[in-house]
């Protein structure tokens, strides 16, 4: 963390989900995507929060909690195809059997109204969260795409068809120190439904090709390797059974011009 002190405090807040500035969160997430040291520090901070949790340990749950759990799991179908709804396992509303029917009906009507409100708010909340998350991902991607396109040091290589006329074009832009590769494809025939195009990094040091992402047709694809710093001798594209594999099975369709 010594290398990036500007993120130190925010990282601690992020570890306990106490950071609430969307811009700051997006910036931090973008940084975490490229910095292993800060990712490790985040893991350490999450472990530190566990220590904080320990300060609350002491009271033991009543015996009835254990009995309740054991009854519930005994009633669970094991590995059922469809998970059971929590409502099925919820506590029985005992008042239903005791209260006058009229009161129960009134309450039921009110409950249905409240339930609709809750579901509506919940759906709205989930949609907003999903939109925010998508926007942050897109911002992060756009920032990295821009930085790669603008970086004159990034390695650029055009791939052309081995046999066919050179209409389709694949361009790769690779930053080994970050482990990011950006691929731009144009003029491709869309892959059949059960197939995908797969990009492979051919390591400078030799060894097996490393999968670098799959795609189906023209467009842009960004891939991040788990390990940064791998030097590429070249790149190749094969067609593989969907959803792609870890070792190429198909013939090389695109490769660097010889």
């Amino acid at each position, binding site marked *: 963390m010594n290398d990036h002190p500007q993120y130190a405090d925010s990282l601690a*807040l992020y570890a306990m*989900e*106490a950071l609430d500035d969307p811009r700051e969160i997006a910036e931090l997430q973008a940084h975490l995507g490229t910095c292993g040291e800060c990712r490790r520090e985040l893991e350490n901070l999450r472990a530190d*929060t566990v220590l904080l*949790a320990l300060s609350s340990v*002491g009271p033991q749950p009543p015996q009835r*909690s254990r009995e309740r759990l054991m009854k519930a799991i005994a009633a669970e179908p094991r590995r059922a195809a469809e998970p059971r709804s929590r409502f099925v396992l919820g506590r029985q509303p005992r008042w239903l059997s005791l209260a006058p029917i009229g009161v129960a009906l009134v309450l039921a009507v009110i409950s249905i109204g409240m339930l609709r409100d809750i579901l509506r708010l919940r759906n709205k909340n989930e949609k907003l969260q999903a939109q925010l998350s998508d926007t942050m991902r897109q911002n992060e991607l756009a920032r990295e795409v821009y930085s790669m396109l603008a970086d004159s040091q990034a390695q650029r290589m055009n791939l052309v068809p081995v046999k066919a006329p050179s209409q389709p074009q694949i361009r790769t832009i690779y930053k080994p120190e970050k482990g990011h590769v950006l691929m731009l494809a144009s003029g491709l025939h869309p892959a059949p439904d059960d197939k995908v195009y797969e990009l492979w990094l051919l390591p400078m040091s030799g060894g097996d090709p490393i999968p670098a992402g799959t795609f189906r047709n023209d467009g842009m694809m960004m891939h991040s390797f788990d390990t940064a710093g791998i030097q590429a001798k070249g790149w190749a594209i094969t067609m593989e059974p969907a959803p792609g594999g870890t070792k190429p099975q198909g013939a090389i369709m695109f490769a660097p011009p010889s």
Partner: protein
Amino acid sequence: MRVPMQVSQQDEAALLARIHAGDESAMAELYDRYSGIVYGVALRVLGSTASAEDLLQEVFLQLWRNPRAFDAERGRLAPWLAVIARNRAIDMLRRRPVEEDIDELPISTGVNLEDEAGERMAIDKVRGVLAQLPQEQRKTLEMAFFEGMTHTEISAKLGEPLGTVKTRIRSGLLALRKAFA
């Protein structure tokens, strides 16, 4: 009802495998060992025994339904359950939708929470460190962790600058880490 012996990482993996196979006694063992951690955290956040019992039930029931949610090779159960309990309790407290699945990442603490003596020592040590922190720093940490407040909310409530709140939280966590280094 607690199991006095230490539970190794292999034991945890074996316990989860038995749970996956539908062995209810394995679930009982796991509950006896770790229910205190989940319940303690839930009670601290929610402040209600009934709500804490509900959360306890929910967490262990979901682990029973999906024991593979926890990867025994990447961490230990005790810290993982503590984080799940805290996050879900905060969701309940803040009336946020609670996730159906337990999908938090495994955590490695390096602290022995797998036997009662180790856990007791760790708890005492944590409480000792917290007691020595300046009161406002301890309060800030607790507001963030146990009350689920964001740094902006804490700053507004305490009337302190955002930067101060951030720094207090980080240095408080680092003080805990240092005590176990």
